[in-house]
Every structure is written in structure tokens, then in C-alpha cells.
């Protein structure tokens, strides 16, 4: 049994019972990939009325290694506009990178961080070089060396 099996089982038990407002569990049929929906609850005009879908993928080394977390696009689930979120759903957040991750983080705390990252945002645009990045990137999200050029966001 890998390190994360027991831990993910327990996380699932807990979030199946309750999650903070604006976060809902959509699908967790196995311990490899989960889907969660998030909404921004305050009146931020950029995100009002929208629901976004997050996809978590867990490796064998979770929670020692971070999960891979991206937004996934489908009908009525757009990719939120944010200077740290690329139009293909990849999120540039230090918490999700290999060096910013900590094993005491969990699915719920990651969702809350992303939720608050949206809540506090006032810039209605994509990261610089979005089109280039989206057409050329082949790396897994956590292996991308993001350049945190826009730290005041």
C-alpha cells in the first residue's frame, strides 16, 4: 500500500461529509483522480455566477509530492480569467510546485487557496505569453518552472 492510499481515503471520507462554502466534490471514483467544482462567493465581477472545475491527480508519492491540479474546461465550466491561470487550465501557484508544496496541505486546503486566489484578483486577463505557452508547453504542470514575475497579484 502506498503512502497516500490511506491518507486519500481519509481525506475523501472527510470531504464527502463537508466542504467549505463554494467548494463541492463532483467525482472521486478512485484514489487517482478527483474532480471538484469551485465558485467565488463574494461579488467579484470577474467570477460572479460562474462555476469552475478543478481536476486533481495524485501520484504514488502523495502527499510527500504535490498533486497535479488544473482547471478543466467543459460546457458551463470555463477556465477562470486570472494572470496566473493559463487558458489551458494550468495554474501557476507556488503551493502546487515541488518546492512550494508541503505534505500538511490537502485537497481541501488547496481548493481554498485557489478560491482565495480568485477572490482577491482584480485583473481580468491571462498571464503574459499565454498563447505561446499553451501552444508549446509539453511538461507536466508541477515540472514547469514558473517565473513568478507578477508577485503582487
Amino acid at each position: 500500500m502506498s503512502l497516500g492510499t490511506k491518507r486519500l481515503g481519509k481525506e475523501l471520507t472527510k470531504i464527502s461529509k463537508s466542504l467549505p462554502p463554494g467548494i463541492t466534490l463532483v467525482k472521486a471514483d478512485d484514489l487517482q483522480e478527483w474532480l471538484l467544482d469551485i465558485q467565488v462567493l463574494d461579488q467579484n465581477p470577474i467570477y460572479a455566477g460562474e462555476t469552475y472545475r478543478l481536476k486533481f491527480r495524485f501520484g504514488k508519492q502523495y502527499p510527500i509530492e504535490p498533486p497535479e491540479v488544473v482547471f478543466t474546461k467543459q460546457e458551463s465550466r470555463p477556465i477562470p480569467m486570472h494572470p496566473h491561470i493559463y487558458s489551458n487550465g494550468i495554474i501557476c501557484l507556488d503551493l502546487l510546485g515541488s518546492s512550494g508544496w508541503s505534505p500538511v496541505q490537502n485537497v481541501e486546503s488547496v481548493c481554498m487557496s485557489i478560491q482565495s486566489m480568485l477572490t482577491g484578483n482584480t485583473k481580468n486577463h491571462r498571464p503574459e505569453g499565454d498563447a505561446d505557452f499553451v501552444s508549446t508547453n509539453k511538461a507536466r504542470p508541477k515540472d514547469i518552472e514558473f517565473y513568478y514575475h507578477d508577485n503582487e497579484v
Partner: protein
Amino acid sequence: MAGDTVKAGILKTDGNKRFQNGDFVGAESLYSKAIIADDTNPALYTNRAMARLKLSLWDSAIADCLACLKLNGESMKAHYYLAQAYLELRAFDDAVSHASRAREICATTNDKSLAQVTTLVLRCKKDRWDDAEKRRKRAHRELEEDVLAAMRREKEDSLAAMTPPTADAGGNSSPATTTMEDVGDRRQVAEEWDAKMEQLSRVFESARANDDKRREVPEWAIDDITFAFMVDPVITVSGQSYERASIMEHLRRQPTDPLTREPLRPSDLRPNLALRKACEEFLDENGWAVDW
């Protein structure tokens, strides 16, 4: 007497190959030949014990581990395999003590198997608790049955002693001895006994319900990294405790405190003895907490 170490070494390598290919019978026999060539190498005994565990030969696996421990009392693998064999044989105290010894050796030698061995310690303790619990519940049920049977006998004896309305030897009942008052008394005595027995059953029943109810694991006993019950909590500079195996796993990847992200080295960790004692005591009483 050191034997033919070269020959034993070749046989061992061949045995390892067989083992990796899943041929445990072949591996076992090659390890046996290696031991004949050189009976002073402790690793040969643990290798054979490992093959014998795969073949469910618990007693001979134990014999190998004990032979290894005679040559090297600090063999982590010998203690680890012993614990597994004893667990299969339901010798729970031995399983717990050897698993714990293996875990201690892992902790002092910084062995990468620490997480796996820690899991085995918990498994052994859980199985030991399950077994004790099963026996306790059976004894409880037997006690209930015995007491109820005794009460039933007591009830019948009391009723029998109350000048029962029996027919006399001639077959003529004697109406003078069976008054309405007697019938009433008998009914009252019978009802009293029935009520007592029902009450007793309820007491046992509520004790059983309590068994299934106490299912809260205290937060302090849970490792924040694996969410597993802690066996050997160690405390960081920031004051948070983690299971030794999981914080070591994290520090191998990144030498920082998971909470504060300040630099943290394995040598900064200290055992949290009071917490460890509390965890042990809780687990002794609540073995179910392992699978919480």
C-alpha cells in the same frame, strides 16, 4: 567456522534471481545450499526466511530468523520477518515485540523501510487487539447466557417451593390447597423474575452498544502527513509532532519544516516521549483506531 563464502555467494545470487522471478521453491533450495556452504552468514538465513514466508512455511521461517539473530542480534530483517510469521501463527505478543524491535532498528539506522515497518507495527497491534476483543466479547456472551440460565433455574425453584397445584397420587386434585390467592402469588413471583431477566439482558445489550460507539480518534494521535495513528512521534523546532517515518520521508525530499517552511534537518527532530506514551496507551485500549 566460516565456510566456503565464494560458493555461498554465488548460490545466494542465483537464489535472489529465482526469488525475483517468483520461483520461491527454487530460491529456498538455493539458499539452503548456500547455508550448507557457509553457515555463518546471517543474510543467508533471512533470505531463506523471506522465501519461506512466501511459501507460508511459518515455523521454518521463524527457525531461520532465530538462527540469523544468533549470528546478528541487530538484524532488522530477522525481526521484521519474525513479526510476520508470528502474526500468521496468531502469536500476537511476539509479533508486536519483534515488529517494534525492527522499527527501532530502522529508526536508529535511518533505514528506508521505516514507513513499511511502522505500518507492520500498527497491523500487529490491531490484530492483537481484534483477537483480545473477540475473546472478550465471547466471554461476555457466555457470562450473559450463564447468568440468565441460573436465573431461570432460580425462578423455577421458587415457583416449585410455592405449594404448587399438583394432583395427588390418587389423581384427585385437592381444591382446598389451590386458592385464587396462590395463583396470584405465583404469577407475581414469575413476573418479578421475568422482569429481572429482562433488565439483565438490557444491561448486557447496552454494554454491547457502547462497544460500537466509542469511535473517536483524538487529533493528537494522528500524523498530519499520512493521517495514520502515530507510533513514534517526533517533534520539530516549531513544536508540531509527526510520525518519524513520514517526516523523514518529507525531509529526504525537502529539508524544511512542513508548517513554517523554515530549514529543518533530521538532527533537529526530537522524540516526543510523552505523546508516544499517550498514543501507546490509547492504542492498547482502542486497537480499532489503526483502521480509523
